[in-house]
């Protein structure tokens, strides 16, 4: 941004313009000297030509220097030197103009008014202070020349056709002339630089506005991309749901077709119909889970939340689950710390979290059992369900919480399952500002945990989580 600052670019362009302008001034001066020398035979042509040659000479130097600076575009050097470069040029121009005036009549020469141009150029190129200093410098040089000639310190070159003799010695005229010139230069400088400053401010505002616009538009682009991603994810989800819903319906219809079409023997018919019934039940499970999931999606954060005692919710769930575990010959232990803080959540959803995790553990465990624990650390309430079941391969762990995802071994072990349980758990827990995670080792068991922020801090918060203590030995 620094390199492309428009004010700096403008300054460099104006300096090139200054060099070009000076060639015109040199040509104009030469013509002026020729015309004046024809009218005023006494004109000191020699010194005037010498000064003009000097102007041309330093302009060549400036031209070369400006080219060198242009070659260094982008190095940053140009930027620092440009204002100084302009000041030097303007100062030399002022000195040259005063010298020309001095040899061409001094106070008698009306072309002294050209000093105003220099001050205006300075105001365009430089800062307000610098242009004031240039105006002051020009006025001082002029005053020094006029007063120097008046006082006899400098020789006076009289131009008889232009003014009466001795004008430069008339004190009141000289004083009024110097005063008028000084006021004109300072006012011209002040006016020009106030216009320039305002223009620069406008440019700066425009620049900032355009930068703000750019930032805005990049923000909008980002938001748009995010929306598009969300939309694509939603489409994929709908497509998956459609497939998951259609596939069992298709199978059920084919099964009914088989029976109604008389393709199967009576004993086979019964088997096929009972499978169809199971698939219909699965569909119902899936629809229930989809509703649960969409409910978890809709609830944003804590708006429907109330303080919930996870231990109490767990107690209700455990009664049902214990029977299921014992029917399978598994041990079922519950390890709940005392004085756990309530969490902000919906009690029904917390029940769904416990039910999903515990029923999964029982479903995929054939030997040993399930340990449920609830504990609190400094900044979270942690629930965990550990089993001694089949375990989950490391490759499958990251995908576990995706909708419809079931691992190959899980499908092989238990046919019935929607693949939605863990997705629902994740949705619910995250919607209340919590996290879910799983640890597992194939053949040894799995541990599913969730953490939610407590509503009250624990007094003995420094103590380590009790959830780490539960170790289970397979039966």
């Amino acid at each position, binding site marked *: 941004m620094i390199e492309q600052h428009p004010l700096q670019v403008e300054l460099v362009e104006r300096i090139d313009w200054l060099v070009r302008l000076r060639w015109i001034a040199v040509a104009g001066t030469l013509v002026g000297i020729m015309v004046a020398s024809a009218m005023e035979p006494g004109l000191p042509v020699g010194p005037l030509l010498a000064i003009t040659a000097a102007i041309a000479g330093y302009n060549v130097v400036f031209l070369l220097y400006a080219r060198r600076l242009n070659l260094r575009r982008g190095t940053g050097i140009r930027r620092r030197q440009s204002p100084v470069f302009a000041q030097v040029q303007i100062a030399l121009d002022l000195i040259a103009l005063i010298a020309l005036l001095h040899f061409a009549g001094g106070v008698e020469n009306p072309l002294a008014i050209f000093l105003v141009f220099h001050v205006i150029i300075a105001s365009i190129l430089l800062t307000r202070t610098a242009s004031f200093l240039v105006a002051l410098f020009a006025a001082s040089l002029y005053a020094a020349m006029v007063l120097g000639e008046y006082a006899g310190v400098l020789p006076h070159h009289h131009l008889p056709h232009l003014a009466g003799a001795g004008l430069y010695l008339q004190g009141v005229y000289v004083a009024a002339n110097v005063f008028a010139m000084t006021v004109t230069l300072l006012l011209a400088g002040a006016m020009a630089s106030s216009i320039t400053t305002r223009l620069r401010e406008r440019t700066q505002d425009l620049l900032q506005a355009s930068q703000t616009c750019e930032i805005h538009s990049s923000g909008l682009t980002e938001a748009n991309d995010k929306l598009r991603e969300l939309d694509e994810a939603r*489409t*994929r989800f709908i*497509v998956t749901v*459609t*497939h998951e819903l*259609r*596939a069992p*319906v*298709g*199978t059920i*219809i*084919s*099964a009914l*077709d*088989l029976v109604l*079409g008389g*393709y*199967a023997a009576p004993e*086979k018919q019964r088997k*096929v119909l009972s*499978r*169809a019934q199971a*698939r219909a039940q699965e569909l119902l499970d899936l629809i229930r889970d989809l509703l649960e999931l969409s409910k978890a999606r809709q609830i944003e954060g804590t708006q429907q939340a109330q303080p919930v005692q996870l231990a109490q919710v767990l107690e209700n769930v455990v009664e049902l689950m214990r029977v299921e575990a014992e029917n399978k010959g598994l041990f079922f232990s519950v390890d709940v710390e005392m004085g756990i803080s309530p969490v902000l959540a919906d009690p029904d959803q917390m029940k769904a979290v416990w039910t999903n995790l515990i029923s999964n553990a029982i479903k995929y465990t054939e030997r040993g059992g399930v340990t449920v624990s609830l504990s609190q650390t400094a900044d979270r309430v942690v629930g965990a369900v550990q089993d001694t079941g089949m375990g989950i391969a490391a490759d499958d762990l990251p995908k576990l919480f995706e909708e419809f995802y079931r691992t*190959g071994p899980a499908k092989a072990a238990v*046919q019935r399952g929607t693949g939605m349980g863990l997705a629902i758990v994740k949705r619910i827990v995250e919607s209340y500002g919590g996290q879910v995670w799983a640890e597992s080792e194939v053949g040894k068991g799995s541990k599913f945990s969730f953490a939610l922020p407590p509503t009250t801090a624990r007094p003995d918060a420094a103590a380590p989580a009790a959830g780490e203590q539960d170790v289970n030995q397979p039966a």
Partner: protein
Amino acid sequence: MATKGKVLIVDDDPDLVEVMRTALESDGFEVISAADGTQGLNLMRQEKPDLVFLDVIMAHPTEGVDVSTTMKEDPELWDIPVVMLTSIVDTEYLGHFPTDRPLAVDQFLTKPLPLSDVLRIANEVTGQDT
């Protein structure tokens, strides 16, 4: 009695495989089945079926498509007729298959396919008259 022909069903839904198997066997076909694409290709090479019913979406959304493409590139398998089955009818959805190649299938049918159609196709393809 000699069978009318050998039919391979590649589908990850065991219930559907069972239903189709029952219907086809009752009509005199020999039925073999595979639950995924790789197993399906292996069985094709071993058993040289006369017809393959291929499910599109198995573990991967394009598993069936991949199987049929492999078949059409393999001189051993490219003569075997393929009937592709999918539970997705929507052509818009087919756009979600990340594939730009033409599907190398003989018929593309939607589930649930009436068993009468399954038998008709099996009989037609194996040159039986019903």
